[in-house]
Protein backbone atom coordinates (compact mmCIF):
# COMPACT_ATOMS: atom_id res chain seq x y z
CA UNK A 1 0.00 0.00 0.00
CA UNK A 2 1.07 3.54 -0.77
CA UNK A 3 0.95 6.05 2.04
CA UNK A 4 0.99 9.74 1.17
CA UNK A 5 4.12 11.76 1.83
CA UNK A 6 4.51 15.50 2.10
CA UNK A 7 7.19 17.91 1.04
CA UNK A 8 9.87 17.57 -1.60
CA UNK A 9 8.34 20.23 -3.88
CA UNK A 10 11.63 21.86 -4.64
CA UNK A 11 13.46 18.64 -5.45
CA UNK A 12 10.55 17.50 -7.61
CA UNK A 13 10.54 20.77 -9.56
CA UNK A 14 14.29 20.47 -10.05
CA UNK A 15 13.92 16.86 -11.17
CA UNK A 16 11.44 17.97 -13.80
CA UNK A 17 13.82 20.68 -14.96
CA UNK A 18 16.59 18.10 -15.22
CA UNK A 19 14.27 15.78 -17.15
CA UNK A 20 13.56 18.56 -19.63
CA UNK A 21 17.30 19.23 -19.94
CA UNK A 22 18.02 15.55 -20.64
CA UNK A 23 15.29 15.57 -23.25
CA UNK A 24 16.75 18.60 -24.95
CA UNK A 25 20.20 17.15 -25.54
CA UNK A 26 22.73 19.39 -27.29
CA UNK A 27 21.27 22.90 -27.21
CA UNK A 28 22.91 23.75 -30.56
CA UNK A 29 20.94 21.00 -32.30
CA UNK A 30 17.46 21.90 -33.52
CA UNK A 31 14.51 20.53 -31.62
CA UNK A 32 12.55 17.81 -33.42
CA UNK A 33 9.41 19.38 -34.80
CA UNK A 34 6.22 17.42 -34.16
CA UNK A 35 5.48 17.33 -37.90
CA UNK A 36 8.87 15.65 -38.45
CA UNK A 37 8.03 13.17 -35.73
CA UNK A 38 4.60 12.51 -37.22
CA UNK A 39 5.86 12.00 -40.77
CA UNK A 40 9.26 10.37 -40.22
CA UNK A 41 8.36 8.21 -37.22
CA UNK A 42 4.98 7.17 -38.58
CA UNK A 43 5.09 3.60 -37.31
CA UNK A 44 5.91 4.71 -33.78
CA UNK A 45 3.18 7.36 -33.94
CA UNK A 46 0.77 4.64 -35.07
CA UNK A 47 1.63 2.52 -32.08
CA UNK A 48 1.02 5.37 -29.67
CA UNK A 49 -2.36 6.09 -31.29
CA UNK A 50 -3.40 2.42 -31.19
CA UNK A 51 -2.44 1.85 -27.57
CA UNK A 52 -3.56 5.33 -26.57
CA UNK A 53 -6.88 4.42 -28.23
CA UNK A 54 -7.01 7.88 -29.79
CA UNK A 55 -6.50 8.63 -33.46
CA UNK A 56 -4.70 11.96 -33.88
CA UNK A 57 -1.25 11.79 -35.50
CA UNK A 58 -0.39 15.37 -34.48
CA UNK A 59 -1.15 14.79 -30.81
CA UNK A 60 0.55 11.39 -30.77
CA UNK A 61 3.71 12.97 -32.25
CA UNK A 62 3.63 15.73 -29.63
CA UNK A 63 3.08 13.17 -26.86
CA UNK A 64 6.10 11.18 -28.05
CA UNK A 65 8.29 14.28 -28.01
CA UNK A 66 7.08 15.24 -24.55
CA UNK A 67 7.69 11.68 -23.35
CA UNK A 68 11.19 11.68 -24.85
CA UNK A 69 10.30 8.59 -26.85
CA UNK A 70 8.89 6.60 -23.93
CA UNK A 71 6.00 4.85 -25.68
CA UNK A 72 4.01 4.00 -22.56
CA UNK A 73 4.42 7.51 -21.19
CA UNK A 74 3.17 8.91 -24.51
CA UNK A 75 0.25 6.46 -24.51
CA UNK A 76 -0.63 7.60 -20.99
CA UNK A 77 -0.57 11.24 -22.11
CA UNK A 78 -3.06 10.48 -24.89
CA UNK A 79 -5.30 8.47 -22.58
CA UNK A 80 -5.35 11.32 -20.07
CA UNK A 81 -6.01 13.89 -22.77
CA UNK A 82 -9.00 12.00 -24.13
CA UNK A 83 -10.69 12.13 -20.74
CA UNK A 84 -10.83 15.93 -21.02
CA UNK A 85 -12.93 15.89 -24.21
CA UNK A 86 -16.66 15.31 -24.67
CA UNK A 87 -17.71 12.49 -26.96
CA UNK A 88 -19.92 13.69 -29.80
CA UNK A 89 -21.04 10.18 -30.75
CA UNK A 90 -20.20 7.06 -32.71
CA UNK A 91 -19.00 6.89 -36.29
CA UNK A 92 -20.66 4.80 -38.93
CA UNK A 93 -18.83 1.44 -38.83
CA UNK A 94 -15.84 1.68 -41.18
CA UNK A 95 -15.75 -0.20 -44.46
CA UNK A 96 -12.20 -1.49 -44.73
CA UNK A 97 -12.67 -2.49 -48.36
CA UNK A 98 -14.04 0.95 -49.25
CA UNK A 99 -10.98 2.88 -50.39
CA UNK A 100 -8.11 1.39 -52.39
CA UNK A 101 -5.50 0.05 -49.96
CA UNK A 102 -1.87 1.03 -50.14
CA UNK A 103 -0.85 -2.46 -49.15
CA UNK A 104 -2.77 -5.67 -49.51
CA UNK A 105 -1.24 -9.13 -49.43
CA UNK A 106 -2.55 -12.62 -48.94
CA UNK A 107 -0.41 -15.55 -47.89
CA UNK A 108 -3.13 -18.05 -48.76
CA UNK A 109 -4.13 -17.09 -52.30
CA UNK A 110 -1.62 -16.15 -54.94
CA UNK A 111 -4.04 -14.73 -57.47
CA UNK A 112 -6.61 -12.51 -55.83
CA UNK A 113 -8.87 -9.94 -57.50
CA UNK A 114 -7.15 -6.57 -57.21
CA UNK A 115 -3.75 -8.25 -56.97
CA UNK A 116 -1.09 -8.60 -54.34
CA UNK A 117 0.23 -5.15 -53.58
CA UNK A 118 3.24 -4.87 -51.31
CA UNK A 119 2.86 -1.19 -50.47
CA UNK A 120 5.29 0.42 -48.03
CA UNK A 121 6.73 -2.57 -46.21
CA UNK A 122 9.84 -3.62 -44.33
CA UNK A 123 9.31 -7.14 -45.73
CA UNK A 124 12.06 -8.19 -48.13
CA UNK A 125 14.40 -5.42 -46.94
CA UNK A 126 17.92 -6.63 -46.13
CA UNK A 127 17.91 -5.42 -42.55
CA UNK A 128 21.36 -3.95 -42.93
CA UNK A 129 22.08 -0.86 -40.90
CA UNK A 130 22.98 2.08 -43.08
CA UNK A 131 24.55 5.44 -42.38
CA UNK A 132 22.55 7.35 -44.94
CA UNK A 133 18.86 7.15 -45.49
CA UNK A 134 18.03 7.64 -49.15
CA UNK A 135 14.65 8.32 -50.69
CA UNK A 136 14.69 6.60 -54.06
CA UNK A 137 12.15 7.69 -56.63
CA UNK A 138 9.04 5.53 -56.88
CA UNK A 139 8.80 4.78 -60.62
CA UNK A 140 5.62 5.75 -62.39
CA UNK A 141 4.77 2.47 -64.10
CA UNK A 142 1.54 3.50 -65.78
CA UNK A 143 -0.18 0.65 -63.97
CA UNK A 144 -3.88 0.24 -64.53
CA UNK A 145 -5.77 2.03 -61.78
CA UNK A 146 -6.60 0.12 -58.64
CA UNK A 147 -9.11 -2.59 -59.27
CA UNK A 148 -11.58 -3.31 -56.51
CA UNK A 149 -9.97 -5.28 -53.69
CA UNK A 150 -12.63 -7.52 -52.18
CA UNK A 151 -11.77 -9.14 -48.87
CA UNK A 152 -10.17 -12.54 -49.34
CA UNK A 153 -12.34 -13.94 -46.57
CA UNK A 154 -15.45 -12.83 -48.48
CA UNK A 155 -14.23 -14.81 -51.51
CA UNK A 156 -13.74 -17.94 -49.43
CA UNK A 157 -17.08 -17.31 -47.78
CA UNK A 158 -18.87 -17.78 -51.07
CA UNK A 159 -18.38 -21.55 -50.90
CA UNK A 160 -19.01 -21.59 -47.14
CA UNK A 161 -15.48 -22.94 -46.68
CA UNK A 162 -14.92 -20.34 -44.01
CA UNK A 163 -17.17 -19.35 -41.17
CA UNK A 164 -19.37 -16.37 -41.96
CA UNK A 165 -18.96 -13.00 -40.23
CA UNK A 166 -22.53 -13.13 -39.09
CA UNK A 167 -25.39 -15.60 -39.03
CA UNK A 168 -27.28 -15.98 -42.32
CA UNK A 169 -30.54 -15.03 -40.68
CA UNK A 170 -31.77 -13.43 -37.50
CA UNK A 171 -28.83 -11.01 -37.30
CA UNK A 172 -29.79 -7.64 -35.88
CA UNK A 173 -26.43 -5.82 -35.82
CA UNK A 174 -26.15 -5.69 -32.02
CA UNK A 175 -24.74 -2.62 -30.28
CA UNK A 176 -21.29 -3.45 -28.91
CA UNK A 177 -20.37 -2.93 -25.27
CA UNK A 178 -17.92 -0.11 -24.62
CA UNK A 179 -15.08 -0.78 -22.17
CA UNK A 180 -14.46 2.94 -21.73
CA UNK A 181 -17.97 3.41 -20.39
CA UNK A 182 -18.82 0.18 -18.58
CA UNK A 183 -16.93 -1.77 -15.94
CA UNK A 184 -14.97 -4.76 -17.19
CA UNK A 185 -16.73 -8.02 -16.47
CA UNK A 186 -15.88 -11.52 -17.64
CA UNK A 187 -16.79 -13.33 -19.77
CA UNK A 188 -16.80 -10.67 -22.48
CA UNK A 189 -18.42 -10.56 -25.87
CA UNK A 190 -16.05 -10.92 -28.80
CA UNK A 191 -16.70 -7.26 -29.67
CA UNK A 192 -15.57 -6.14 -26.20
CA UNK A 193 -12.50 -8.39 -26.39
CA UNK A 194 -11.52 -6.84 -29.70
CA UNK A 195 -11.79 -3.36 -28.20
CA UNK A 196 -9.51 -4.43 -25.36
CA UNK A 197 -7.03 -6.15 -27.69
CA UNK A 198 -7.03 -3.10 -29.92
CA UNK A 199 -5.69 -0.91 -27.13
CA UNK A 200 -3.55 -3.74 -25.73
CA UNK A 201 0.23 -3.65 -25.60
CA UNK A 202 1.83 -4.68 -28.88
CA UNK A 203 4.63 -6.60 -27.19
CA UNK A 204 2.27 -8.50 -24.92
CA UNK A 205 -0.04 -9.49 -27.77
CA UNK A 206 2.92 -10.40 -29.97
CA UNK A 207 4.25 -12.77 -27.32
CA UNK A 208 0.84 -14.33 -26.74
CA UNK A 209 0.31 -14.74 -30.48
CA UNK A 210 3.75 -16.31 -30.75
CA UNK A 211 2.91 -18.66 -27.90
CA UNK A 212 -0.09 -19.98 -29.85
CA UNK A 213 2.19 -20.71 -32.80
CA UNK A 214 4.58 -22.60 -30.57
CA UNK A 215 1.84 -24.93 -29.40
CA UNK A 216 0.30 -23.17 -26.44
CA UNK A 217 -3.21 -23.09 -27.86
CA UNK A 218 -2.26 -23.98 -31.39
CA UNK A 219 -4.75 -23.03 -34.08
CA UNK A 220 -2.63 -23.35 -37.22
CA UNK A 221 -2.97 -19.86 -38.68
CA UNK A 222 -2.53 -18.47 -42.20
CA UNK A 223 -2.72 -14.84 -43.17
CA UNK A 224 -5.83 -14.69 -45.31
CA UNK A 225 -5.18 -11.04 -45.86
CA UNK A 226 -3.33 -8.06 -44.49
CA UNK A 227 -4.23 -4.61 -45.71
CA UNK A 228 -3.02 -1.15 -44.84
CA UNK A 229 -4.70 1.96 -46.10
CA UNK A 230 -6.93 4.89 -45.44
CA UNK A 231 -10.60 4.45 -44.76
CA UNK A 232 -13.20 7.16 -44.89
CA UNK A 233 -14.93 7.95 -41.61
CA UNK A 234 -18.55 9.01 -41.61
CA UNK A 235 -20.50 10.56 -38.80
CA UNK A 236 -24.24 10.95 -38.51
CA UNK A 237 -24.76 14.27 -36.76
CA UNK A 238 -28.36 14.84 -35.70
CA UNK A 239 -28.34 18.48 -36.85
CA UNK A 240 -27.33 17.47 -40.39
CA UNK A 241 -29.89 14.69 -40.65
CA UNK A 242 -27.71 12.12 -42.43
CA UNK A 243 -24.18 10.73 -42.27
CA UNK A 244 -21.41 12.85 -43.80
CA UNK A 245 -17.70 12.08 -44.32
CA UNK A 246 -15.51 13.75 -41.69
CA UNK A 247 -12.07 12.70 -42.87
CA UNK A 248 -9.88 9.66 -43.33
CA UNK A 249 -8.05 7.41 -40.92
CA UNK A 250 -5.20 5.06 -41.76
CA UNK A 251 -5.75 1.51 -40.55
CA UNK A 252 -4.23 -1.94 -40.69
CA UNK A 253 -6.45 -4.99 -40.94
CA UNK A 254 -5.53 -8.66 -40.63
CA UNK A 255 -7.78 -11.58 -41.47
CA UNK A 256 -6.25 -14.72 -40.00
CA UNK A 257 -7.59 -17.98 -41.37
CA UNK A 258 -7.31 -20.89 -38.95
CA UNK A 259 -7.82 -24.59 -38.99
CA UNK A 260 -11.31 -25.88 -39.36
CA UNK A 261 -13.91 -26.99 -36.94
CA UNK A 262 -17.03 -28.93 -37.66
CA UNK A 263 -19.46 -31.21 -35.93
CA UNK A 264 -22.36 -33.48 -36.67
CA UNK A 265 -24.53 -30.53 -37.72
CA UNK A 266 -21.94 -28.23 -39.27
CA UNK A 267 -19.63 -29.25 -42.13
CA UNK A 268 -15.97 -28.44 -41.43
CA UNK A 269 -15.11 -24.78 -41.99
CA UNK A 270 -12.03 -22.63 -41.59
CA UNK A 271 -12.32 -20.41 -38.52
CA UNK A 272 -11.19 -16.82 -38.28
CA UNK A 273 -9.32 -14.37 -36.14
CA UNK A 274 -9.59 -10.65 -36.75
CA UNK A 275 -7.29 -7.72 -36.15
CA UNK A 276 -7.88 -4.05 -36.90
CA UNK A 277 -5.74 -1.22 -35.57
CA UNK A 278 -5.12 2.48 -36.11
CA UNK A 279 -2.23 3.46 -38.34
CA UNK A 280 0.50 1.24 -39.76
CA UNK A 281 0.47 -1.56 -37.24
CA UNK A 282 0.86 -4.82 -39.07
CA UNK A 283 2.56 -6.72 -36.27
CA UNK A 284 -0.11 -5.59 -33.84
CA UNK A 285 -2.99 -6.45 -36.19
CA UNK A 286 -1.54 -9.92 -36.81
CA UNK A 287 -0.95 -10.57 -33.11
CA UNK A 288 -4.43 -9.32 -32.33
CA UNK A 289 -5.99 -11.71 -34.84
CA UNK A 290 -4.04 -14.67 -33.41
CA UNK A 291 -5.11 -13.86 -29.87
CA UNK A 292 -8.69 -13.16 -30.99
CA UNK A 293 -8.86 -16.67 -32.45
CA UNK A 294 -7.25 -18.26 -29.40
CA UNK A 295 -9.80 -16.55 -27.15
CA UNK A 296 -12.65 -18.12 -29.12
CA UNK A 297 -11.79 -21.56 -27.69
CA UNK A 298 -14.94 -21.79 -25.68
CA UNK A 299 -17.10 -20.90 -28.68
CA UNK A 300 -15.62 -23.85 -30.58
CA UNK A 301 -15.59 -26.22 -27.62
CA UNK A 302 -11.79 -26.38 -27.51
CA UNK A 303 -9.90 -27.27 -24.33
CA UNK A 304 -8.58 -24.18 -22.58
CA UNK A 305 -5.05 -25.15 -21.60
CA UNK A 306 -2.87 -22.17 -22.51
CA UNK A 307 -2.48 -18.56 -21.36
CA UNK A 308 -3.53 -17.13 -24.75
CA UNK A 309 -6.90 -18.89 -24.45
CA UNK A 310 -7.61 -17.54 -20.98
CA UNK A 311 -9.79 -14.49 -21.47
CA UNK A 312 -9.34 -12.94 -18.07
CA UNK A 313 -5.59 -13.52 -18.07
CA UNK A 314 -5.18 -11.95 -21.51
CA UNK A 315 -7.57 -9.02 -21.25
CA UNK A 316 -6.80 -8.06 -17.66
CA UNK A 317 -3.07 -7.86 -18.43
CA UNK A 318 -3.00 -6.48 -21.95
CA UNK A 319 -3.46 -2.81 -21.08
CA UNK A 320 -0.01 -1.32 -20.68
CA UNK A 321 -1.21 1.85 -18.93
CA UNK A 322 -2.70 -0.26 -16.16
CA UNK A 323 0.27 -2.61 -16.14
CA UNK A 324 2.93 0.06 -15.97
CA UNK A 325 0.92 2.04 -13.43
CA UNK A 326 0.83 -0.87 -11.04
CA UNK A 327 4.40 -1.97 -11.60
CA UNK A 328 5.88 1.52 -11.52
CA UNK A 329 3.96 2.72 -8.50
CA UNK A 330 6.22 0.41 -6.48
CA UNK A 331 8.99 3.00 -6.71
CA UNK A 332 6.95 5.71 -5.00
CA UNK A 333 7.52 6.22 -1.26
CA UNK A 334 6.35 3.16 0.67
CA UNK A 335 8.20 4.06 3.87
CA UNK A 336 5.35 3.56 6.31
CA UNK A 337 4.36 0.13 4.99
CA UNK A 338 7.92 -0.88 4.77
CA UNK A 339 8.52 0.20 8.39
CA UNK A 340 5.68 -2.14 9.38
CA UNK A 341 7.24 -4.94 7.31
CA UNK A 342 10.61 -4.21 8.91
CA UNK A 343 9.07 -4.41 12.37
CA UNK A 344 7.47 -7.73 11.49
CA UNK A 345 10.60 -9.29 10.01
CA UNK A 346 12.67 -8.17 13.03
CA UNK A 347 10.28 -9.81 15.45
CA UNK A 348 10.21 -12.98 13.31
CA UNK A 349 13.98 -13.07 13.32
CA UNK A 350 14.09 -12.57 17.08
CA UNK A 351 11.76 -15.54 17.52
CA UNK A 352 13.85 -17.57 15.08
CA UNK A 353 17.08 -16.76 16.91
CA UNK A 354 15.59 -17.51 20.30
CA UNK A 355 14.27 -20.85 19.07
CA UNK A 356 17.53 -21.63 17.30
CA UNK A 357 19.53 -20.88 20.44
CA UNK A 358 17.22 -23.09 22.48
CA UNK A 359 17.54 -25.91 19.91
CA UNK A 360 21.34 -25.55 19.97
CA UNK A 361 21.41 -25.85 23.74
CA UNK A 362 19.15 -28.91 23.58
CA UNK A 363 21.28 -30.72 21.00
CA UNK A 364 24.47 -29.79 22.86
CA UNK A 365 23.01 -31.42 25.98
CA UNK A 366 22.09 -34.56 23.94
CA UNK A 367 25.63 -34.81 22.47
CA UNK A 368 27.09 -34.85 25.96
CA UNK A 369 24.82 -37.78 26.78
CA UNK A 370 26.32 -39.71 23.81
CA UNK A 371 23.15 -39.67 21.75
CA UNK A 372 22.87 -38.78 18.01
Amino acid at each position, binding site marked *: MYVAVKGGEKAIANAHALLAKRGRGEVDAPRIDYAQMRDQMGVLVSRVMAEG*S*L*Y*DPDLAAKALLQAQGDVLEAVTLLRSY*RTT*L*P*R*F*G*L*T*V*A*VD*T*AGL*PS*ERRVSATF*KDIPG*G*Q*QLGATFDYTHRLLTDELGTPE*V*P*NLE*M*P*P*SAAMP*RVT*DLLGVDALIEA*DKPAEGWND*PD*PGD*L*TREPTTFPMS*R*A*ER*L*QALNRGDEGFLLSLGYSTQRGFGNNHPFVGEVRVGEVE*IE*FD*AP*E*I*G*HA*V*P*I*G*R*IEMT*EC*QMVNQFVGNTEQAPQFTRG*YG*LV*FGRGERKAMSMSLVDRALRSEEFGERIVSPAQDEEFVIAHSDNVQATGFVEHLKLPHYVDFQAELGLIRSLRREFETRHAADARMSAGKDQNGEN
Partner: protein
Amino acid sequence: MTAQESAAYGLAPDERRRAARVLSGATQADLEMLWSDWKEQPEVTYLRAPEAGLVMVQGRIGGTGDRFNLGEATITRATVLLSGIGIEDVIGTSYVLGSHPEHAGLAAIFDALLLAPEQRARVLAEVIEPLERGQKERDTSAQADARSTVVDFFTVARENE
Protein backbone atom coordinates in the same frame (compact mmCIF):
# COMPACT_ATOMS: atom_id res chain seq x y z
CA MET B 1 -33.56 28.76 -35.04
CA THR B 2 -33.36 27.81 -38.68
CA ALA B 3 -33.28 24.15 -39.57
CA GLN B 4 -29.93 22.78 -40.66
CA GLU B 5 -30.96 19.58 -42.38
CA SER B 6 -29.97 19.30 -46.02
CA ALA B 7 -33.58 18.72 -47.07
CA ALA B 8 -34.70 22.01 -45.52
CA TYR B 9 -32.49 23.82 -48.03
CA GLY B 10 -33.41 21.69 -51.02
CA LEU B 11 -29.96 20.14 -51.14
CA ALA B 12 -29.59 16.44 -51.97
CA PRO B 13 -27.83 14.52 -49.15
CA ASP B 14 -25.26 13.25 -51.66
CA GLU B 15 -24.29 16.80 -52.59
CA ARG B 16 -23.79 17.71 -48.96
CA ARG B 17 -21.84 14.51 -48.38
CA ARG B 18 -19.62 15.36 -51.30
CA ALA B 19 -18.98 18.84 -49.92
CA ALA B 20 -18.32 17.50 -46.43
CA ARG B 21 -15.83 14.99 -47.86
CA VAL B 22 -13.99 17.70 -49.75
CA LEU B 23 -14.05 20.28 -46.95
CA SER B 24 -12.87 17.81 -44.29
CA GLY B 25 -10.14 16.51 -46.58
CA ALA B 26 -8.87 19.96 -47.55
CA THR B 27 -5.91 21.55 -45.84
CA GLN B 28 -6.55 24.42 -43.50
CA ALA B 29 -4.28 26.62 -45.63
CA ASP B 30 -6.38 25.97 -48.74
CA LEU B 31 -9.59 26.85 -46.93
CA GLU B 32 -8.05 30.01 -45.48
CA MET B 33 -7.00 31.12 -48.95
CA LEU B 34 -10.38 30.35 -50.49
CA TRP B 35 -12.17 32.27 -47.75
CA SER B 36 -9.90 35.31 -47.92
CA ASP B 37 -10.42 35.35 -51.71
CA TRP B 38 -14.19 35.15 -51.26
CA LYS B 39 -15.66 38.43 -52.45
CA GLU B 40 -18.77 39.82 -50.77
CA GLN B 41 -18.45 37.95 -47.50
CA PRO B 42 -21.61 37.48 -45.47
CA GLU B 43 -21.69 38.27 -41.77
CA VAL B 44 -20.57 35.19 -39.81
CA THR B 45 -21.91 34.46 -36.35
CA TYR B 46 -20.64 31.39 -34.52
CA LEU B 47 -23.64 29.68 -32.98
CA ARG B 48 -21.21 27.07 -31.77
CA ALA B 49 -17.59 28.14 -31.76
CA PRO B 50 -15.15 25.48 -32.95
CA GLU B 51 -15.23 22.82 -30.26
CA ALA B 52 -12.90 19.85 -29.82
CA GLY B 53 -14.32 16.45 -28.96
CA LEU B 54 -14.18 12.77 -29.71
CA VAL B 55 -15.96 10.25 -31.84
CA MET B 56 -15.80 6.55 -31.10
CA VAL B 57 -14.71 4.82 -34.30
CA GLN B 58 -16.45 1.52 -34.88
CA GLY B 59 -15.32 -1.39 -37.00
CA ARG B 60 -16.95 -4.68 -37.85
CA ILE B 61 -15.66 -8.09 -36.78
CA GLY B 62 -14.15 -9.77 -39.83
CA GLY B 63 -15.06 -6.74 -41.93
CA THR B 64 -18.83 -7.24 -42.18
CA GLY B 65 -19.90 -8.82 -38.86
CA ASP B 66 -20.91 -7.36 -35.51
CA ARG B 67 -19.75 -3.84 -34.76
CA PHE B 68 -17.04 -3.25 -32.16
CA ASN B 69 -15.48 -0.12 -30.69
CA LEU B 70 -12.07 0.39 -32.20
CA GLY B 71 -10.98 3.50 -30.36
CA GLU B 72 -11.68 7.20 -30.40
CA ALA B 73 -10.56 9.91 -32.78
CA THR B 74 -10.32 13.63 -32.14
CA ILE B 75 -12.84 15.71 -34.00
CA THR B 76 -13.68 19.41 -34.14
CA ARG B 77 -17.10 20.79 -34.88
CA ALA B 78 -18.46 24.25 -35.53
CA THR B 79 -21.82 25.80 -36.41
CA VAL B 80 -22.18 29.20 -38.04
CA LEU B 81 -25.03 31.50 -38.93
CA LEU B 82 -24.59 33.52 -42.12
CA SER B 83 -26.55 36.65 -42.93
CA GLY B 84 -26.22 39.59 -45.30
CA ILE B 85 -25.38 39.63 -49.04
CA GLY B 86 -28.92 38.41 -49.66
CA ILE B 87 -28.57 35.37 -47.41
CA GLU B 88 -31.38 34.90 -44.98
CA ASP B 89 -29.98 33.34 -41.83
CA VAL B 90 -28.45 30.13 -43.12
CA ILE B 91 -26.88 27.75 -40.62
CA GLY B 92 -23.94 25.55 -41.60
CA THR B 93 -22.26 22.84 -39.57
CA SER B 94 -18.99 21.00 -39.91
CA TYR B 95 -17.41 17.97 -38.29
CA VAL B 96 -13.75 17.49 -39.14
CA LEU B 97 -11.39 14.80 -37.80
CA GLY B 98 -8.42 16.16 -35.88
CA SER B 99 -7.89 19.09 -33.55
CA HIS B 100 -7.95 22.02 -35.93
CA PRO B 101 -10.49 24.65 -34.82
CA GLU B 102 -9.85 27.06 -37.72
CA HIS B 103 -10.34 24.24 -40.22
CA ALA B 104 -13.70 23.32 -38.70
CA GLY B 105 -14.79 26.97 -38.56
CA LEU B 106 -14.03 27.55 -42.25
CA ALA B 107 -15.66 24.26 -43.25
CA ALA B 108 -18.84 25.33 -41.43
CA ILE B 109 -18.84 28.66 -43.30
CA PHE B 110 -18.55 26.93 -46.68
CA ASP B 111 -21.19 24.40 -45.64
CA ALA B 112 -23.57 27.27 -44.88
CA LEU B 113 -22.76 28.98 -48.19
CA LEU B 114 -23.52 25.71 -49.97
CA LEU B 115 -26.90 25.57 -48.24
CA ALA B 116 -27.76 29.12 -49.29
CA PRO B 117 -29.45 28.57 -52.66
CA GLU B 118 -28.13 31.78 -54.23
CA GLN B 119 -24.52 30.97 -53.28
CA ARG B 120 -24.58 27.26 -54.04
CA ALA B 121 -23.37 27.34 -57.64
CA ARG B 122 -20.51 29.64 -56.71
CA VAL B 123 -19.38 27.44 -53.80
CA LEU B 124 -19.42 24.41 -56.02
CA ALA B 125 -17.47 26.11 -58.79
CA GLU B 126 -14.96 28.06 -56.72
CA VAL B 127 -14.44 25.84 -53.66
CA ILE B 128 -15.72 22.30 -53.89
CA GLU B 129 -14.71 21.45 -57.44
CA PRO B 130 -11.15 22.84 -57.35
CA LEU B 131 -10.49 21.22 -53.97
CA GLU B 132 -11.95 17.96 -55.19
CA ARG B 133 -9.73 18.01 -58.28
CA GLY B 134 -6.67 18.57 -56.11
CA GLN B 135 -7.61 15.72 -53.79
CA LYS B 136 -8.25 13.41 -56.71
CA GLU B 137 -4.83 14.21 -58.13
CA ARG B 138 -3.19 13.41 -54.80
CA ASP B 139 -5.16 10.16 -54.53
CA THR B 140 -4.28 9.16 -58.09
CA SER B 141 -0.62 9.83 -57.47
CA ALA B 142 -0.64 7.90 -54.19
CA GLN B 143 -2.42 5.02 -55.88
CA ALA B 144 0.07 5.02 -58.72
CA ASP B 145 2.88 4.72 -56.16
CA ALA B 146 1.04 1.86 -54.48
CA ARG B 147 0.28 0.11 -57.79
CA SER B 148 4.00 0.12 -58.64
CA THR B 149 4.40 -2.45 -55.84
CA VAL B 150 1.96 -4.98 -57.31
CA VAL B 151 3.72 -8.32 -57.18
CA ASP B 152 3.31 -11.57 -59.05
CA PHE B 153 4.77 -14.42 -57.07
CA PHE B 154 5.56 -17.66 -58.87
CA THR B 155 5.38 -20.84 -56.91
CA VAL B 156 8.38 -22.96 -57.77
CA ALA B 157 7.35 -26.53 -58.49
CA ARG B 158 9.30 -29.20 -56.67
CA GLU B 159 11.65 -31.27 -58.80
CA ASN B 160 10.00 -34.61 -58.11
CA GLU B 161 6.54 -33.35 -59.02
